[in-house]
């Protein structure tokens, strides 16, 4: 047993779990590859992970750094831009085919126009930024009040 640990790098339970996992994955994987264009299925499966880790994640990280950097000394305000932008971007990413009217099948199948999605997304985005701005105003007013009447009220 100790020899296994030294050679393998983990306990026998780890090995059993890995073996079981790969057996199931292989059994289903063969069928997955035959379930479509084999080359493209592999491309989609591996590509999804690579696209996320090497493109999407660096892109939104860089965008976040750019906004934080642009704010300079007022970087504490970044969340008032970051949060609505993140939520709006998430919606755009998830419903891209409908928002961009790229989904040609939607209207003929559902009997409903996809035109409203772009407008709704813009409205939701506007609402998110408005909420964020209101929040900022409320916070600013509150902190100013605290500054102006902080001492007298504390002495009561």
């Amino acid at each position, binding site marked *: 047993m100790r020899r296994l640990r030294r050679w393998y790098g983990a306990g026998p339970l780890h090995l059993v779990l890995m073996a079981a996992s790969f057996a199931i994955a292989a059994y*289903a994987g063969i069928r997955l590859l035959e379930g479509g264009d084999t080359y*493209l299925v592999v491309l989609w499966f*591996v590509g999804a992970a690579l696209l996320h*880790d090497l493109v999407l*994640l660096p892109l939104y990280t860089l965008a976040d750094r750019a906004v934080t950097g642009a704010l300079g000394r007022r970087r504490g305000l970044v969340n008032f831009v970051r949060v609505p932008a993140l939520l709006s971007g*998430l919606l755009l990413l998830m419903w891209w*085919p*409908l928002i961009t009217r790229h989904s040609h099948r939607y209207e003929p199948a559902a009997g*409903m126009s996809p035109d409203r999605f772009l407008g709704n997304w813009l409205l939701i985005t506007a609402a998110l930024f408005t909420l964020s701005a209101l929040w900022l105003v409320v916070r600013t007013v509150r902190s100013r009040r605290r500054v102006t009447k902080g001492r007298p009220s504390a002495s009561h």
Partner: protein
Amino acid sequence: MDDSRLKTPARLAAPQLPSTPAFWRSPVRGVRFTALLGVVLLAGITLLFVTGLLSYAAYNPDLAAVNDKTPDKGLLGFYLFAWPTGPHWLYRLTQGLHVTVGIVLVPVLLAKLWSVVPKLFVMPPARSVAQALERVSLLLLVGGVLFEFVTGLLNIQLEYLFPGSFYPLHFYGAWVFVAGFVAHVGLKLPRTLRVLRHGIPPAADELATPDPAPPTLSRRGALTVVGAGSLLLLVTSAGRSFDGPLRRVALLTPRGGAEPGEGPNGFQINKTAAKAGIVPADTRERWRLTLAGPAGEVRLTRAQLLAMPQHSAALPIACVEGWSTSDQWWRGVRLRDLAALAGHADGRAPDVLVESLQPSGPFRTVALRGNQVADPRSLLAFGVNGEELSLDHGYPARIVVPAAPGVMNTKWVARMTFGGVR
């Protein structure tokens, strides 16, 4: 940039590569943060997998070749069972949960992947055989989960970009993913629970950065943002499982918003007659329903069918895409009465093969099981909500079966063959 930070040892070793821990500077990352997202995903993805398996069973793929989009499933169909007809909202619930919970989990999933991304670049990639295997298994996990979420989200938007038919890709893809998921949970759950119960000393936290950037958001704040994302998605999509005002709230999801029409036939349409290639003339005077069975073939006009005993059933339409309608009030002939007319008069309901007028499509022909034919609420409907069926809802006649997926409720029915389904 603050000069004092440039003098820290980590900064001096320029240039920074993703493989050095100090490259990753967000103070939000940490094992406890990842563990919290992990347990949410454990619960959520387990629900997605179970409801997904149920949806697969709901098509009764083991009943007939026409129902089976994955004929080479082998052992993966081990659990299949005769899909029940009650409660009549069963599929509406399970598939509504499958799709809506899937949508709502997207921010949690993205946050979880963000929280562990430094591990992707750790050098060397593996220090032992065990670690090398674990890395391969992580490709199944991450590739698998993204593959499943992307194919699912594209399918509900009717954007069939994926390289094959949705059913085999999403079904087999789920099993490949789950293989990686089970291994991951098996390896990580003990530590996850320990960290959540007792916390973690900073020195043992391999996800926390050694060189944190000045904080702009607390960990609690980051979790709140993730929660806000999920809440936003829930509010803008859950209404697609209901009629009327609730659907109007679903602003950004397929089948959300206003209904496609007005009046008794105004509810959601699975697929319009035009899209299905229905020629309106074929549905009028020249339309006949062919019943086949032990008694031979019978051809019936709509008037003859309307002269048979008519029954009512309040049933929803629930689509694999996750949307559904509230109960609609259908009126028509019981399937079991039609079975008797076709020669199955002994009271034992047979399976039935239902064919539509639509010229093509993966569900032009479907098979229903005996228990579905036997249910008194299973109808060949001619009217809905007190009015004749509209062409888009299947005029002159459509099937409605309690708890069956939308596409199993064949529209524009042309022929029904009772018994001998394979």
